[in-house]
C-alpha cells in the first residue's frame, strides 16, 4: 500500500512553513539565537535554532491560546500549516487520526512545574501548568481546536519517536481505520537542555572521556515542529510523493536492511555517537546528505528530513548537504551540489540511542 503526503507543516530555525524550508535548502539561510542562562557560576551563552509561532494567530484566536505554552503552540501551528498546505483547513476532512511524537515532551513547562514543587515551602502546583506538562496535552489541544474526534495518539520514543509515529499512521491507514492521518512531531529548547549543552559540548568546558564522542561543531540545539497529512494513495495523489515503507529495529543486534536505489538523508546532528557509524551501513556510492545545519539537533529531527525528502520529490532535486565533516568519514558519497533525483527513492535514516534505528523511504 502506498501512503501519499498531501500536506506538510514545518517550523524551526529556518522559518515557518514549507516555503521557508525550501528557501533554506536553496540559500542555506537559517537563524541561530544565542540564549543566555543564569547559573550560580554566572551567565552562560548557548546557541540554539528557535521556532517562531507568531503565525498561529492567523489560525486560532488569542483567547483560545491563552493556556497554551510554546511547546504546544509549535505543535498546533505545525498541524494548521500542514492542513493549509493540503487544502484541508476548512474542508470536510472525513475521519482523520492524529498522532504526535516527541522526544522530550513539554520540558520547559515540566521543569518549571517541578521547580515550583521543589522550591516552594509548601508544594504548590498550578493546575494549568500541570495539565500542560503531560505528554498528550498537545494532541488534546489539537483535537479540540480542529474539532476532530478520530483516534488520537501521543508517542514518545526519544530519537525514534517520529519513525514510531509514522509506523502507527501507516498501520491506521492500512487497516482503513481512518481516511487520513495528521502525523508529526515537536520538541522544544529548554534551559536544562542549554545547560546540558554547555556542560558537555562547549569547547572551553570539556569533560574528559565524553566530549570526544560528540561533535560540538555541529551540535546546535534545535526546536520546532514538523507535521504531515497522510492518506492512502488510491484516494489521492500528491506532488510530494508517497511513503513507501517504514522500518525500525536494532542495528547492533541485527544490522540494517536498507532499500535499494536510494539516496540517504541521515539524521546526523552532532549529538549522537552514532553519527560516525552511518558510514558502516550505507551502500557504497549511494548519495547521502545531512540537513541538521538547517534545523539543529533534536530527537525528532528526522521529521524535517522527511519534509526535505518530500520537497526533493516535488522538485526532482536532491539538495546539497550540510557540512560533510559531521560523518567523519571519507567513504560516504556526500551530496555537495544540488543533484537530479532521477528515479531514486529517498530513505530518511536515523541511528539512535542503544543501537536503535528507524528509516522511512519515500518515492515519487
Amino acid at each position: 500500500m502506498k501512503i501519499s503526503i498531501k500536506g506538510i507543516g514545518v517550523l524551526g530555525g529556518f522559518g515557518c512553513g514549507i516555503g521557508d524550508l525550501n528557501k533554506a535548502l536553496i540559500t542555506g539561510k537559517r537563524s541561530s539565537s544565542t540564549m543566555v542562562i543564569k547559573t550560580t557560576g554566572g551567565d552562560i551563552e548557548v546557541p540554539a535554532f528557535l521556532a517562531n509561532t507568531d503565525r498561529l494567530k492567523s489560525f486560532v484566536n488569542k483567547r483560545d491560546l491563552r493556556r497554551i505554552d510554546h511547546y504546544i503552540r509549535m505543535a498546533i501551528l505545525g498541524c494548521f500549516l500542514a492542513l493549509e498546505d493540503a487544502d484541508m483547513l476548512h474542508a470536510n476532512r472525513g475521519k482523520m487520526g492524529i498522532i504526535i511524537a516527541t522526544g522530550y515532551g513539554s520540558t520547559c513547562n515540566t521543569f518549571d512545574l517541578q521547580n515550583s514543587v521543589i522550591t516552594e515551602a509548601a508544594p504548590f502546583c498550578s493546575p494549568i501548568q500541570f495539565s500542560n506538562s503531560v505528554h498528550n496535552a498537545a494532541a488534546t489541544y489539537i483535537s479540540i481546536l480542529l474539532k476532530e474526534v478520530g483516534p488520537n495518539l501521543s508517542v514518545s520514543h526519544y530519537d525514534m519517536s517520529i519513525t514510531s509515529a509514522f509506523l502507527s499512521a501507516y498501520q491506521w491507514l492500512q487497516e482503513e481505520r481512518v481516511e487520513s492521518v495528521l502525523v508529526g512531531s515537536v520538541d522544544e529548547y529548554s534551559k536544562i537542555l542549554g545547560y546540558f549543552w554547555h556542560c558537555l559540548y562547549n569547547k572551553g568546558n570539556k569533560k574528559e572521556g565524553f566530549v570526544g564522542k560528540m561533535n560540538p561543531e555541529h551540535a546546535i540545539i534545535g526546536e520546532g515542529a514538523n507535521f504531515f497529512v497522510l492518506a492512502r494513495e488510491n484516494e489521492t495523489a500528491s506532488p510530494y510523493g508517497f511513503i513507501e515503507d517504514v522500518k525500525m529495529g536494532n542495528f547492533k543486534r541485527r544490522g540494517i536492511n536498507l532499500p535499494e536505489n536510494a539516496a540517504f538523508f541521515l539524521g546526523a546532528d552532532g549529538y549522537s555517537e552514532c553519527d560516525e557509524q552511518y558510514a558502516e551501513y550505507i551502500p557504497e556510492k549511494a548519495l547521502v546528505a545531512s540537513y541538521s545545519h538547517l534545523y539543529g539537533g533534536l530527537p525528532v529531527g528526522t521529521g524535517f528530513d522527511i519534509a526535505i525528502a518530500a520537497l526533493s520529490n516535488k522538485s526532482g532535486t536532491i539538495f546539497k548537504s550540510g557540512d560533510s565533516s559531521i560523518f567523519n568519514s571519507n567513504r560516504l558519497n556526500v551530496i555537495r551540489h544540488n543533484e537530479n533525483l532521477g528515479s531514486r527513492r529517498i530513505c530518511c535514516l536515523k541511528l539512535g540511542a542503544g543501537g536503535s534505528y528507524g528509516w522511512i523511504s519515500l518515492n515519487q
Partner: protein
Amino acid sequence: MTTQEKLKKLIVDTLHLEDITPEEIEDDEPLFGEKLGLDSIDAVEIVFQVEHHFGVGIKDMKEGRPAMQSINTLAAFIEARL
C-alpha cells in the same frame, strides 16, 4: 493596593488574559460571565492562586461557588480569613 486590585492583576496575569487589563475588570461583574469568559479550568487555577498568594484555601464547591461570583465576593472571602 487593595485586595480587589491584587485579585484583578492576579487573574489577568495567571490566566493569561492578554486581551483585557486589570482596570477593565469591574468589581461586581460575574467572573464566569460573557465578558471575562472564564471556565471551570480557570476556577481551579483561581483556587490554587488564591491559596498560593493569600494563604487562603477554598475547600470545596460549597465555599467556592459563592466566593467566586465576582472580584468583590472573592475579596470579601479572602479578607474574612486573613
